[in-house]
């Protein structure tokens, strides 16, 4: 009897601790929101919440794509540049269409423009995957290369200038381009709705499809996955192309919100995306991570920086605080892993 109680008590504690640790990103979000609600008077106003969500959405898109890539054991440094290049492509298409020579040009409506831009983003993702799978370039290097190439191409596309006044043309059906960034349905901004769609889709892929399971398996142990019949290269193509897709969406949204596209847009966005993924519990070693966690992580980062702005904290301090939060997240993640392993081993030992 005594033996039984003494053996169950510590495991009970560990389990409770584990639940707390697993929900840490969510707890952090609640704490951050509570803090700023008290400290910054307008923080909880609807207008502020909508603006903040729009900010967060941009990073959340990239972070969702990044999460898949990191779970599969890779990294995608090129997303920020994909955002910039895709924004430029969108801006160019709205302003000029495609010149087919002899003074003719083809103009596109908003939907067509979006599809073309998305295709460009996915194509760059496919190049990343090609370099990584067929040419055996390490993901860090391959995507670092495409980071520069895509950024340079964006600069070249306009000679470093901004494409201004992307109001579109009703004649061509591209006047609705502004709606993507400014419009809303039942008061919910379009970009937030898109985030919900992409988030739900990604969560579904991760948890309810063989493809999602394969992504985790490839990141956890590529050799074992291969010998189990997983088509490793196909999985890698998917994750990098999906990341490119997310980058393209962000490029479209930003250029629509600003009604202009600038080639330097999206600089260092990839780092924010990685930060959100890590904050949400994604393991850089691969094989572990949750889309939901990443979205919450993106909100923690976004709420933190917007809240600090509202409190009038210097942006230099914001950067320092962001860094500390990321480090703390990873340290706590390590603790969670240890507790989790202990709980599993205790449960296993209990049955002998």
């Amino acid at each position, binding site marked *: 009897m005594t033996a039984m109680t003494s053996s169950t008590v510590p495991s009970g504690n560990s389990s409770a601790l584990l639940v707390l640790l697993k929900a840490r990103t969510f707890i952090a979000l609640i704490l951050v929101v509570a803090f700023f609600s008290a400290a910054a008077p307008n923080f909880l106003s609807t207008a502020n919440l909508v603006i903040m969500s729009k900010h967060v959405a941009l990073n959340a898109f990239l972070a969702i794509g990044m999460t898949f890539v990191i779970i599969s054991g890779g990294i995608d440094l090129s997303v920020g540049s994909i955002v910039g290049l895709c924004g430029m492509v969108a801006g160019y298409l709205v302003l000029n269409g495609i010149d087919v020579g002899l003074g003719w040009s083809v103009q596109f409506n908003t939907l067509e423009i979006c599809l073309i831009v998305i295709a460009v983003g996915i194509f760059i993702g496919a190049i990343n995957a090609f370099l990584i799978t067929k040419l055996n370039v390490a993901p860090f290097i391959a995507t670092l290369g495409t980071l520069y190439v895509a950024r340079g191409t964006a600069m070249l596309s306009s000679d470093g200038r901004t494409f201004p006044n992307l109001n579109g043309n009703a004649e061509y059906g591209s006047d609705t381009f502004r709606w993507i960034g400014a419009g809303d349905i039942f008061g919910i901004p379009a970009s937030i709705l898109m985030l919900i769609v992409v988030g739900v889709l990604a969560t579904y892929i991760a948890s*309810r*499809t*063989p*493809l999602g*399971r*394969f992504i*985790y*398996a490839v990141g*956890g*142990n590529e*050799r*074992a*996955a*291969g*010998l*189990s*019949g*997983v*088509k490793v290269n196909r999985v890698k193509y998917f994750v990098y192309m999906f990341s490119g897709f997310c980058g393209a969406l962000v490029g479209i949204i930003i250029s629509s919100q600003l009604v202009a596209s600038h080639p330097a847009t999206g600089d260092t966005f990839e780092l924010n995306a990685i930060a959100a993924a890590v904050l949400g519990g994604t*393991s850089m070693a691969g*094989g*572990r991570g949750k889309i939901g966690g990443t979205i919450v992580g993106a909100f923690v980062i976004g709420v933190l920086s917007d809240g600090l702005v509202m409190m009038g904290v210097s942006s230099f301090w914001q950067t320092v605080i962001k860094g500390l939060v990321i480090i703390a997240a990873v340290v706590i993640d390590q603790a969670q892993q240890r507790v*989790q*392993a202990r709980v*599993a*081993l205790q*449960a*296993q030992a*209990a*049955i*002998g």
Partner: protein
Amino acid sequence: MEQEKHPIGLKIRGGTKVYPGTVALKNADFDLRMGAVNVLVGENGAGKSTMMKVIAGVEQLTSGSIFVGGKEVILTSTEEAARHGIGIVFQELNLFPNMTVADNIFINRERTRYGVDIDRAKQREATRKLMKRLEHDIDPDALVGDLKVGQQQIVEIAKSLAQNARILILDEPTSALSAAEVEILFRVIEELKRDGVGIVYISHRLEELIRVGDYITVLRDGVITGARSMEGVDIPWIVLNMIGDASKDFPKTLDHPFGDEIFRAEDVYLPNSSGGFTVNGVSMSLKAGEILGVYGLMGAGRTEFVETAMGRYPHARGTFYVDGKEAKSPHVSDRIKMGLAIIPEDRKQDGLVQILSIRENMTLSSLGDLSTAGHLDLAKEKKTVGDYVKQLLIKIASPENPVSSLSGGNQQKVVIGKALMTKPKVLLMDEPSRGIDIGAKAEVFRVMRQLAAEGLGIIFVTSDLEEVLGLSDRIVVMSNGKITGEFTQETATETALITASAVGHAASHEHKETVS
């Protein structure tokens, strides 16, 4: 008389080493004699490596003591052991492939000027001398990664020599060497013996042991079952001590007729990096319900053969037929669809995704059957996993726990479950009993028998004599990438198998030098 010529340099008394779950070494008394080759032999998992790790300071004894030169010592680290003049050449090479030969040999003992600046010229000179002694023409400035495995082994040995080791442990030093290189190694050993160095020599190649050894110690299940001077020792004596007289057998209770041919491999070749073939023209055929044992030593090409069958190596040549149909696509997933499934040798590296749960590991190969149009049926998955857990008697607290929390035997059953879920016709099992305890072994073998009775064809690779003789309906022996013998249950004997597994390596007896 010989005993006096070779004083005891190191001894273990009452050495016991316990790992969680297993006793690797039980109350062992071991004498290591100087100026002689002390041969250590036993099957995989018999405790040879554990004993050597204890001597080399890698592991500590749970109880018992070690004496060096009559004084009791406690070896807490390899440096500590090196101070007592103990050097070890591990089976897995511990070299830095991106550094030069000289750098590797003097790692952590760099020759320096004023304690900072590495004196490369001096290191190079010393390396050259060592290489000359080892009769190898290896450039001190060559990168270790560019060397052949045999040459790397020589570098490892040179590293130990450079430390002036008085006791040198060689763990399977010849497994990667060619016949000529083995000759050189043996000459070096002779020379070391004359210098009074005590050598411990571990190998699975019995002929080689008899040729090179002066004293022999046989281990079985962590217990020393025989220790004597090599005089008068022959292979049957070693085998007897390795396996024991009352060979515990795995009774073949289920007798069943075989079906038609279900698997055939024709002329399989797998080139290796040094221009030869790891698998060299292997053909074999298997009937439904038959268990075909593939026996051979490490590096004989057995693992590579089954992996080639599975489609792991796109550059391999050869044709495979499953149930009469030729396997055309080289993809693993298509081979699985045809009805092949593999239990890999290295469970950790090739069999399981340690970070994922038991459930996710088990269904990894058969997610297609558990989903419709890309949508996973989680309820069906859970039920299927539950069924297999019950059928294979896997002991788990919850299928959601990470697979890394399981013991070796249960992990192996998860791998078997994963393979069976794909509804295979042919099961390729590579060392299915590796690293699991006796109880789990019996379980695995029971499952194998039962599967064969249900009409599955099983190809089962092992380097364990007892297992291959007890379980197989037919035995094929491989050596150096080739099939060197084929036996039925009636014709197979331990000696015949061992002889066949040494074809192409056989160190000839005529050269045996008599030192005594």
